[in-house]
C-alpha cells in the first residue's frame, strides 16, 4: 500500500483551510438578506453541496460508459467513488434546503421539481449500492453497476422534465417563485462562487481519497483470493 502522495496532503490541508475561509465569508462578509434574514446563509452551502452532487452524478455516468468500453476495473473504482460522494452531498443539499424551506416557504418539504428529482436520485444511488452489495464477483459487480448508472443517468433528466410538467399543470402555491426570485447583491454572488470553488476542492480531495480506498479494497480482495486458493 502506497502512502498518500504529497499533492493529496496539500489538498487535505487546503480543503480544511478553504472550508474555514468559506464559512467565515458566509458569516462575516456576505450581508444578511433583508427578507429572509440569517437563514438565507444556508443557501451558500446548499448551492455548493448540490453542485458537488451534480459533478459526481455526471462523472459517474461518463465513467460507467468508459468502464463498459474498456473493461478496466479502475473505472469501476472511480464510478463507486463518484456515486458515494454524490449521494452524500445531495443528501446534505436536501437537508440544508429543507431547513431553509421551513422558515422561507413554511414547510419542510415541497414537491418542487428539483427537490423531488434529487430525492429520486438518492433512491437510485441507494439501489445502486444495494445492487453492488448482492454481487460477489468484482467484474460482474462492476458491469452491473455501470449498466445501472447509465440507466439512472438517462432516467433522471426525464424524471425532472416530467415532474416539472406535472407541476406546471397543477401549480402549488407554496414555494412559487422561491429562490429564483431572490435578488443577490454583489458580495452575495462572490460568496456563493467562492463557496462553490471551495466545495469543488473538497470534492476533488474526497474523490481522490475514495478512489484510493477502492483500490486498497481491491488489493485486499485479491490477496484474500490468493490465500484461499
Amino acid at each position, binding site marked *: 500500500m502506497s502512502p498518500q502522495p504529497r499533492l493529496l496532503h496539500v489538498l487535505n490541508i487546503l480543503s480544511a483551510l478553504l472550508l474555514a475561509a468559506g464559512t467565515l465569508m458566509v458569516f462575516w462578509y456576505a450581508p444578511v438578506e433583508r427578507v429572509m434574514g440569517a437563514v438565507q446563509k444556508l443557501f451558500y452551502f446548499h448551492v455548493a453541496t448540490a453542485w458537488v452532487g451534480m459533478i459526481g452524478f455526471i462523472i459517474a455516468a461518463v465513467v460507467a460508459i468508459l468502464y463498459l468500453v474498456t473493461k478496466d476495473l479502475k473505472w469501476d473504482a472511480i464510478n463507486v467513488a463518484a456515486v458515494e460522494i454524490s449521494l452524500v452531498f445531495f443528501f446534505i443539499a436536501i437537508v440544508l434546503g429543507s431547513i431553509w424551506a421551513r422558515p422561507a416557504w413554511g414547510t419542510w418539504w415541497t414537491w418542487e421539481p428539483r427537490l423531488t428529482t434529487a430525492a429520486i436520485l438518492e433512491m437510485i444511488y441507494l*439501489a445502486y449500492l*444495494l*445492487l453492488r452489495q*448482492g454481487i460477489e464477483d468484482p467484474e460482474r459487480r462492476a*458491469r452491473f453497476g455501470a449498466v445501472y448508472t447509465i*440507466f*439512472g443517468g438517462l432516467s433522471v433528466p426525464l424524471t425532472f422534465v*416530467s415532474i416539472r*410538467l406535472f407541476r406546471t*399543470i397543477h401549480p402549488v402555491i407554496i414555494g412559487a417563485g422561491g429562490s429564483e426570485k431572490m435578488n443577490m447583491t454583489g458580495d452575495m454572488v462572490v460568496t456563493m462562487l467562492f463557496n462553490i470553488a471551495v466545495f469543488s476542492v473538497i470534492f476533488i480531495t474526497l474523490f481522490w481519497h475514495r478512489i484510493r480506498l477502492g483500490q486498497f479494497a481491491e488489493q485486499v480482495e485479491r490477496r484474500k483470493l490468493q490465500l484461499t486458493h
Partner: protein
Amino acid sequence: MSTSYLRAILAVTWKDLTAELRSRELLSAMLVFSVLVLLIFYFALELDVQTRSEITAGALWVTFAFAGTLGLNRSMAIEKDRGCLDGLLLVPVDRSAIYFGKALSNLAFMLAVEAIVLPLYSIMYNVNLFYPGLLGVTLLGSVGYTAVGTLLSAMSVQTRTRDVLLPILLFPVIIPVFVAAVKASGGFLNGAEWSEIIPWVNILLVYDVIFIAVAFMVFDFVIEE
C-alpha cells in the same frame, strides 16, 4: 435485420408463451395479486364516486407496476433456476435477440393482465375505461416498463438478494413512465384537451425509444458469463 434474427426473437417469445400456457403459474399469480391490490385500494382509499374519478389512473398504474414486478421476477427466475439461460446463450444468434424475445413475452403477460384488470376495475368501480387513448397510453407505458424491467430483472436474478432487489432497482428509474402514464390516462378519463395530454404521450414515446435502444446496447454486458 435478417429473418434469422427475427425468428430467434419470436422463438424465445414463443417458448415463454407455450410454457406459460401449460403451467399458467405466472399469469395466475399476477392476476390474483392485481385483484387483491384493487380490493385493498377500495378499503384503503374508500373509493367513493368522487374520489374515484380523480385517482382511477393512479390506482390502475400502481396495480400494473406491482403486478408487473411479480411477472418480471418469475419470468427471469425460471430461466436462471433451470439453467435455461445457459442454453439460450449457446445459441449462435446475437444475444440481444434473447432480450427482445424475453421483453416481448413479458409485454404479452403484462398486456394480458391489463386486459383483465381494466374491465374488472370498470365493473367493480363502475367507471368507463374504454377510451382508445387510454388503451394506447397503457400500451406505451407497458412497453417502457417491460423494456427496462426485463433488463433489470436479468441483472437482479444474478444477485444474492434476487427478487427483493427488482422493485428497488426498477421503480426509481421508471418514474417518468409512471408520471406520464398516470397523467395521460387521467387526462383521457377526465376528458382533458388533447393539447394537455400530448406532452405526456411525448414523454412516454421518448422514454420508450431511449430505453429500448439502451437496453439493446447493454444487454450483452448483463448476461456475459
